[in-house]
């Protein structure tokens, strides 16, 4: 399959699995939404949810730094 064709297939296969406000409606009120980034807004996650109050994606990105520091320290500290 060509890259573009494969991308189209993935998009259609995964279309029903988008994290959007409709999905959050059935989740608990205190649900947190995570994404390891880079995100494709409007594909696997809606921009609304990504920038919404449940989203912790940028804390999650920041925590790569702290977690990796701790991991490196454990190995060579």
């Amino acid at each position, binding site marked *: 399959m060509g890259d573009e064709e494969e991308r189209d297939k*993935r998009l259609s296969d995964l279309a029903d699995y988008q994290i959007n406000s409709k999905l959050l409606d059935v989740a608990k009120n205190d649900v947190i939404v995570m994404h*390891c980034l880079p995100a494709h807004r409007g594909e696997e996650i809606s921009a609304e949810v990504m920038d919404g109050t449940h989203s912790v994606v940028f804390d999650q990105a920041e*925590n790569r*730094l702290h*977690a990796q520091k701790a*991991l*490196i320290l454990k*190995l060579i*500290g």
Partner: protein
Amino acid sequence: MKNVLSMTDLSKEDILNILETGEDLKEKRIKGKVTDLLKNKSLAMIFEKSSTRTRVSFEVAMSDMGGHSLYLNQRDMQIGRGETVADTAKVLSRYVAAITARVNKHSTVEELAEHATVPVINALSDKEHPCQILADLLTIKEYKSTLEGRKLTWVGDGNNVCNSMILGCVMVGMEIAVACPDGYEPDDDIVSMHVKWGVRLRPSGTRLRLRLMPTFSIPMSGYPWETKRKGIKD
């Protein structure tokens, strides 16, 4: 532990310990406290594919702790082309304290680890992404205080990150459900780890593909999901 190629290279205690240290280092950083814990130590970072977050987070991690990092990309390294992976691992081990590698094939990071005499960290392979999961668990802990008994639902592609997430969740006593379309399931060998760990696997409907429930220690066999994946007949 010498290398961290998979979540399974860490014990539950290792994970909890890393999260605790991570929290502590985060607090220190916010307060502007200097931590010169890795003075004069260098980290080699091999990147077969570029990655902003991985590169920057590792580079800043080292410089924050008084150490140094070296960004080695495919063009500079010619890993597997000019020099064998094994020789690269041996040579780098003479210079640096640890190696991270973001590779296309998981076997490359395994080969590096086999021949390196310093620790090797998998900074993303086609199989696993342990560094991401440590950050994710740290985030969950921050928001939810505790990990054990928490429920996580993975929605979408059951990819390399999902593989590590399954392992991470089960190891810390979280329940994980994976919702993915046909053909996007997480790797079989990862899911089947539940047998070794005595974790209950509950297959479900068409969308919600599987749930791993560490709170129940029921050995299982012949569930439809497993049967389908492994081609075992009832």
